[in-house]
């Protein structure tokens, strides 16, 4: 561990030139991107050339091959129930390169990295280390090859200090069995921290550190394990500009000393500022590996979008929307979202998209009254509402949450009980439960949505995901809801049931309801919605009308930074 990390310890000055150059590029990209966005005409232009993937780009695939290859994944496939997460993906990592891994939500980036670090085993495919066949079955195997991963969820223990965290599980043995050689622990930790220029007392408890500092501890931990390949999953997601610069400087240092870095990112500016090579995944397939000098942000967006979508999702789009059912103005909540303004009209399916973590679910919760609203107003059917989920539900709003098992269903109860759950106060104003009336209402709901259950008395927990989703919708239909907010309605549902869920949502708007649909599947938004809002960093950054609603435009608005 000790001798071989010496070469990492490189004078900061020697890297300064490289770093400065990269940061300059980064700034240029940022200004380029923001000026592009501010231009009012760009939306139309973007739309015109949205889906035509340049043929020469495909030809460029695999053009870039720096040597020597340190680690190679060849023909990796991985199947999960109902979805092919990776399909014949090959990926190389060269010594001293920063390899950017790019793709939309669900493109397969995380799965590929989990295969590399031993968390998953590929169904088929081969691994090579320095050209020799290698096998990675466990995280320990991956560590043996010098592969270290820094996940977005840190693997740090909050109430241990920095040194104890760096060497957790690999403590230096003291003279007395079981005891730790503390002198060595802190001096070695100091050495690791010096290597990345992190000037902090290694006795500091980790829970007192900010996100950026915790990330540095993770990097020091990886280096102490003699990492030669460092995988970073969206490392700048929670960092400020200054912290990002610092991180880039460290990455530059590591790169110079021969450490290979696989960098997963959603920020195109970063991709160009840092990357020596860029690999794009889509739908579990490798689309291209290109050099930054040979590509442009536009090219990359085109490579990333265009996921295959079931044609049956298409519907008759709404031409003449009715009255405004839901109107939100200048909304902010204590969950971080701010200046949110949107409207949903009768007969419309309105999409709400953006990257995971961009604040979509927070908007839904704030509108429904589940999070505290700190500014702005919400009008439902013209009347101002606000405050509690009970109030919203009574006045005709329904939230169908992402995690229906935890938040949308009483799993221990029957289908019938679940359907009448939100209407009990209306059906039985006296407070006395009449089983006959309840079961009649439940049967009507089952019939209307064609829920596949032999009887209303069947436990809801045995139904399929699609049918459970229908039970949640039936619950709100019974409660006379007019505005439905769907948060990730198709998550964990197989392809056939997906089409049915969309038919169901379509039925709702046909009957005069308004729907706000949150989805990470941009292709679904594009095919199903009449209109969509795009979010980034807890704000709405754009609205796309039906004619401009393309994946490329969503990615453009949601990703540029």
């Amino acid at each position, binding site marked *: 561990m000790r001798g071989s990390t010496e070469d990492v310890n490189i004078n900061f000055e020697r890297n300064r030139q490289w770093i400065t150059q990269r940061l300059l590029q980064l700034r240029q990209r940022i200004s380029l991107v923001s000026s592009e966005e501010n231009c009012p005409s760009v939306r139309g232009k973007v739309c015109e050339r949205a889906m035509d993937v340049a043929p020469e780009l495909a030809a460029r695939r695999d053009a870039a091959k720096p040597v020597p290859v340190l680690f190679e994944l060849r023909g990796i496939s991985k199947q999960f129930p109902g979805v092919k997460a990776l399909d014949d993906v090959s990926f190389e990592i060269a010594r001293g390169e920063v390899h950017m891994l790019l793709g939309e939500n669900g493109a397969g980036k995380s799965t590929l990295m989990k295969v590399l670090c031993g968390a998953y085993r590929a169904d088929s495919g081969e691994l090579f280390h320095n050209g020799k066949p290698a096998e990675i079955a466990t*995280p*320990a195997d991956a560590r043996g090859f010098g592969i270290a991963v820094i996940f977005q*969820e*840190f*693997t*740090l*223990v*909050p*109430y*241990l200090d920095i040194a*104890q*965290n760096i060497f*957790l*599980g*690999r*403590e230096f*043995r003291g003279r007395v069995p*079981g*005891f*730790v050689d*503390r002198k060595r622990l802190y001096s070695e930790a100091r050495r690791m921290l010096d290597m990345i220029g992190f000037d902090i007392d290694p006795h500091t408890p980790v*829970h007192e550190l900010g996100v950026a500092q915790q990330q540095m501890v993770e990097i020091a931990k990886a280096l102490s394990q003699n990492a030669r390949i460092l995988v970073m999953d969206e490392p700048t997601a929670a960092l400020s500009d200054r912290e990002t610069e610092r991180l880039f400087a460290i990455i530059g240092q590591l790169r110079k000393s021969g450490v290979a870095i696989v960098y997963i990112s959603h920020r195109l500016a970063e991709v160009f500022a840092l990357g020596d090579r860029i690999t794009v995944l889509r739908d579990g397939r490798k689309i291209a590996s290109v050099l930054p000098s040979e590509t442009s942000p536009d090219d990359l967006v085109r490579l990333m979008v265009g996921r295959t979508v079931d044609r049956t999702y298409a519907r008759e789009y709404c031409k003449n929307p009715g009255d405004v059912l839901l109107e939100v103005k200048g909304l902010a909540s204590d969950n971080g979202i701010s200046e949110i303004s949107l409207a949903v009209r009768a007969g419309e399916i309105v999409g709400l998209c953006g990257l995971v973590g961009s604040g979509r679910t927070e908007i839904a919760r704030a509108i429904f009254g589940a999070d505290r609203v700190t500014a702005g107003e919400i009008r439902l059917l013209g009347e101002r509402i606000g405050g509690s989920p009970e109030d919203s539900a009574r006045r005709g709003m329904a939230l169908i949450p992402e995690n229906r098992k935890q938040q949308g269903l009483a799993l221990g109860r029957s289908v019938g009980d679940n359907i009448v759950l939100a209407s009990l106060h209306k059906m039985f104003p006296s407070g006395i439960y009449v089983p006959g009336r309840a079961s009649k209402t439940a049967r009507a709901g089952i019939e209307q949505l064609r829920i596949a259950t032999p009887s209303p008395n069947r436990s809801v927990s045995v139904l399929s995901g699609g049918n459970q989703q229908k039970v949640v919708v039936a619950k709100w239909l019974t409660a006379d809801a007019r505005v439905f907010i769907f948060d990730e309605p198709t998550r964990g549902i197989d392809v056939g049931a997906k089409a049915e869920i969309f038919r169901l949502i379509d039925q709702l708007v046909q009957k005069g309801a308004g729907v706000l649909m949150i989805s990470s599947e941009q292709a679904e938004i594009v095919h199903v919605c009449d209109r969509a809002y795009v979010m980034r960093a807890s704000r709405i950054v754009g609205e796309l009308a039906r004619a401009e609603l393309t994946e490329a435009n969503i990615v453009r608005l949601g990703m540029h930074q």
Partner: protein
Amino acid sequence: MTAQAANTANAILTRIPGVAIALVALIAVFSMASPAFATLSNLQNILIQSTILLLLALPMTLIIMTEGLDLSMGAVLTLASIALAITVVATGSSALGLAAALAVGLAFGLLNGCLVALLDIPPFIATLGTLGIAQGLSLVVTDGQSVVGIPRALQQVYGGTFGGVPIPILIGIVAFAAIHLLLYRTRFGNYIFALGGNREALKLAGVSDRAMLVATYLVGGTMAGFAALLMTARMNSAHPTAGIGLEFDAIAAVAVGGTSFERGNGWLVGTLLGVLVVGVLRNGLNLMAVPSSAQVAGIGALVIAALLIDGLRSRS
């Protein structure tokens, strides 16, 4: 006072742990309420009487730090005490008696650990079950009667002195030092922090989290065995209901001491102070002739007050 001085005073005040304030306040109140409280012999009494609780509260801190709980400690102490008394009466050997008590403690520690770590039974349920088993066995073995005939030598463990210092206080100091070293200086101690703080990190570091969890409950059983020695010496006998409710006092002391039930945030000095708070409260209420049943209510109220105050302080 200038504004700056006020700020500094405020900053210092917020750094003093709530449990220390509670201890000082209780001592002040009881000193005023009863002339018998603030005497040297009474304060020494409080320390002596608190050692049994300390021996349970120390390992309880470790177990709670792993996001666990051990409700069986009082009942295991009782059963260990009975095993000790029967062995001593039968063989006349105190060493064999202590060995029997430790064997009972280790057996239940292992059982608790296996139920929680290997079978994934929630600690509350698992240790509630072993509480019942240990309590039931105690009653069956003794037929509900006390085991008497403890030799004088054994009674000296509680009543005697060594170099002028009461032996229970010495045992308490040794136990505190041992658990302190275990938690803050050994690899196992690091892993206890990780069990509650980030179990995934521990697994990724290649450490068996299950083995470490079992070991933590084993520490609890062992300490209950030692506490049984003190309890038997103190009562001059073993009684099948002697330890009932001790786990309540132990958990209360840990909670009042500021150990959090999540994220592996524990503090042994806090637990020591928490034990003294419970000890002072019991002693003071005794002097004021408050019946022991009402004392339990007092401790309960204290726990809630301590957690409320800590919550308010951390928010501000």
